[in-house]
């Protein structure tokens, strides 16, 4: 699943070009451009209301940008539906929990990848685990969820559900994952563990991540490249130390 495959060896992986999204007079995203390479982890920081999630939604087809383009592996994906994007190997997590509360943890993981298994009649007749049982068990082990694997996801703690949410996004072995505040609501003692999991996943599956997060320690240690957004614009971008030391970023977001 690494990179764009043989078809477009020279193409940029994800390229966001001058994306804008306005709601009336409010410019939620105001001309944002950046690129993500294969296997790269990019962090997006910025105060609440700076347009980070709107940017994610514009990339992922949840909303249509007012103007600008998003290219993935040389193909324009602007305005494509989440369904079309997921078929191209693009996944995401949301700020809020998106697990299927009545399904077991294991079934949540299976349902997250099953639509990639074969044709429609094959899926109608497929075994209940869709041939994904082993992969689901590996992910359950990887995320330390074995003792709760058979419980309904909705009965678990917020932090555990957050882990399931993230594990689900990685079940189809996506090429690009957009993670929206993966640490929000997670017990601080789990944050380091979560970062280690993401780094391991990045190495194991080779996908690229774009991560929105307010936990600065988490993002600075996870992401070799960081973008700071303020009022819908990119204020600064570069290695975490550079962005952290940027005076404008300090004034607008990080404080003194």
């Amino acid at each position, binding site marked *: 699943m690494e990179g764009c495959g043989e078809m477009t060896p020279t193409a940029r992986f994800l390229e966001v070009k001058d994306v804008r999204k306005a709601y009336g007079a409010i410019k939620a995203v105001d001309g944002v451009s950046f690129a993500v390479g294969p296997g790269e982890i990019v962090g997006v920081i910025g105060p609440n209301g700076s347009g980070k999630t709107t940017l994610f939604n514009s990339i992922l087809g949840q909303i249509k940008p007012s103007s600008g383009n998003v290219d993935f592996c040389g193909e324009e994906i602007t305005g494509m539906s989440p369904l079309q994007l997921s078929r191209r190997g693009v996944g995401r997590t949301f700020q809020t929990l998106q697990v299927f509360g009545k399904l077991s943890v294991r079934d949540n993981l299976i349902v997250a990848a099953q639509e990639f298994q074969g044709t*429609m009649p094959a899926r109608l007749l*497929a075994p209940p685990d869709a041939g994904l049982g082993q992969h689901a068990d590996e992910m359950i082990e990887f995320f330390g969820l074995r003792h709760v694997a058979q419980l309904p996801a909705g009965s678990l703690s917020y932090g555990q559900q957050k882990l399931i949410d993230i594990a689900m996004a990685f079940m189809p072995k996506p090429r690009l994952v957009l993670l929206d505040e993966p640490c929000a609501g997670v017990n601080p003692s789990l944050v380091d563990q979560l970062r280690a999991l993401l780094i391991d996943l990045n190495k194991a599956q080779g996908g690229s991540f774009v991560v929105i997060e307010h936990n600065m320690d988490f993002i600075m240690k996870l992401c070799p490249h960081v973008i700071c957004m303020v009022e819908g614009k990119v204020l600064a971008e570069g290695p975490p130390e550079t962005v952290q030391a940027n005076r404008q970023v300090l004034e607008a977001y990080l404080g003194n």
Partner: protein
Amino acid sequence: MGDLIQLIVSGIATGAIYALAALGFTLLWQAAGVINFSQGEFVMLPAFAILLFIALGAPLWLAFLLACVAAMLVLGIGFKWVIVDPLIRHGVIPLVIATLGLSIGLKSTLKAGYSAEAHPFPSPFPGGQFSIADVNISYADIGTLVVAGFVVISLQLFLNRTVTGRAMQAVAQNTDAAKVLGIDVKRMVLYTFLINAVLAAVAALLVTPTYLAKFDMGDAIGQKAFFAAIIGGFNQTRGALLGGVLIGVLENLVGFYVSPAYKEGVALILFLVVIVFRPEGLLGRAEERKV
């Protein structure tokens, strides 16, 4: 004692038919956010379709299968394309009004265009009854229970044990997340409409020998399906089953021990009690989904 058991068995059989229609109700609500107030007419139309195919020379079983196909095309795909798809984005209320209108339209069209009379309908089961101890149980009740039970169990197995069934559950629980995970939400919703159409056709086959095929036969069954769904819990398929059976049994008991005149009020009273004391339904949970 014999009376009581007899009443309970035949009540469960009648309730199982309500449950089939109620199940369709809850499935449509969970997967598509649609409340279908023409559910009763969705049972009435296949009944007439079966009579039509019989008049054309088909035996009952073939007429039923053909009616299932016709129901899937007209009440499944047609209903979704013509009424639900254009209106769903405007919220629940326009669809409620549209399905109420559809209910009136279908009844009036059939009454004016075909017949206002009640037409006899062949029973798929042998007449007569058998006795165990001093309890008489009719073959029709047993047959109804077996067929309805088979349909309900098959549906539960499909929803819980197949990849597609699980995807349908995922769509019902969280549409946005399902989309992002690559589940074809539109197709899963279409499956739900097709299943609802088949459930209605089965209910028609089972209920019409008693109700007779009449343009307004759907009034009672539509209402009871709606009440059954609310009583059991609108967001629980198990709730629809419980609600249907509860109504069927209590109707029989009240009809026998109190007065047949009060029989038709049972579902309404049960519905009011549940709405006041447990609005989420007996097995329901507080609604989490956005409407």
